[in-house]
């Protein structure tokens, strides 16, 4: 069986890779492209640690075949900071101590960014529901929610 040749865009960069049919997008991101920010927690779509966006849509990269990435634009946690400048969400996670072990953090940041792009002023309830597919076993979530709402407020205050 020959491998599939896949052309895609990852964090704005045109990217090509070869993959077998059964590999997930997460497998290729981590093992082939060495983008190891996206984590494998459950590998069944329950924990959200592998969250990425595909054409702007939040998905679990463990539940998508790598070959399905053909022609699509993928954004991962590695595209979030601009050089040494952290995204406001990343800064607020540090300020609010919204992480301990850090395993869930990339997925939470990617998911929170997708929320704020759709809804710049989410309520706490909306934020909690949006992030319900991202499990964190350390923080108890409260600091995460506060960090996201604080980042949203900072982004809204920025001049357009």
């Amino acid at each position: 069986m020959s491998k599939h040749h896949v052309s895609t865009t990852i964090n704005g960069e045109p990217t090509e890779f070869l993959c077998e049919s059964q590999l997930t997008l997460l497998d290729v991101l981590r093992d082939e492209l060495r983008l190891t920010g996206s984590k494998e927690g459950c590998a069944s779509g329950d924990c959200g640690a592998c969250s990425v966006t595909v054409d702007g849509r939040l998905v679990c990269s463990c539940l998508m075949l790598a070959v399905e990435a053909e022609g699509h634009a993928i954004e991962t946690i590695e595209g979030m900071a601009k050089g040494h400048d952290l995204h406001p969400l990343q800064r607020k996670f540090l300020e609010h101590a919204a992480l301990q072990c850090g395993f869930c953090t990339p997925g939470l940041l990617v998911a929170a960014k997708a929320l704020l792009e759709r809804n710049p002023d989410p309520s706490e309830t909306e934020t909690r529901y949006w992030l319900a597919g991202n499990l964190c076993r350390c923080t108890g979530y409260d600091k995460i929610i506060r960090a996201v709402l604080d980042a949203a407020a900072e982004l809204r205050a920025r001049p357009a």
Partner: protein
Amino acid sequence: MLAYTAPSTVEEAVRALAGASGLAKVLSGGTDLLVQLRSGRAKPALIVDTKKIPGISGISERDGAFVIGAATSGAMIGEHKALQRAWPGVVEAANLIGSTQIQGRASLAGNLCNASPAADSVPALIAARATCVVAGPNGRREVPVETIVTGPGRTSLAADEFIVAFHLPKRPPRSGDAYLRFIPRTEMDIAVVGAGVSVILDAKGVCTDARVVLGAVAPTAVLVADAANALIGRTLDETALAGLDKAARAACKPIDDKRGTIAYRTKVAGVMARRAATIAYERAGERQ
């Protein structure tokens, strides 16, 4: 070794399914299929990805009726304002499936063909009299959604058939639908009981047509004619609600499992049917 193909027409997809050397699986959103691949529960020789077929993802409206492509994601369904206005129960049911991430990919065709008794969108679709367009080697056929699932994990589709679209009929004035799911938490769980209700009222608020469908209380979703008959010809008075509750409970043939006992599921089915009917009536009253 697993093979993968992404045909660009319905006919090519049917030929790929028909020509597979072993088990072929249709891939839409993949939120169930990839879990099954990983666990080894599904061992296909071929995956046929439908998403390159034009129209397989997307929603169109014509004369008040809707066509929903089989692979349309839950997120797209939730963002479609006209569909939300016409069929709020179908939309809320589709949007209950999994997390935000799952909503980015999960489809109606996948939720139906995975054939879980607890599938959330299925009772709402059946209550809505939705049909699905099935493509196969002899062309296309349109069948009611309730004819697809025959038991847990089993469907009436032949190996070389797949669903290409769902049709939802035009809504008359004073019509409304609702879907409620009972889970012991607020999010990210599988239905203990689901109830979908669709009603049409006359100018005096008397029900002229109703469909009541229960999920997770039998091997397949159950269309409960006696429950609908308890509503038809009445306003939503206590007699109608008591008759609905009784008929819903009588239709239950649930299992005992960690999510609920037989007695518990049966009792909750009556309560969910009442509450869903109440919401469907309220929505019908708002659509003059």
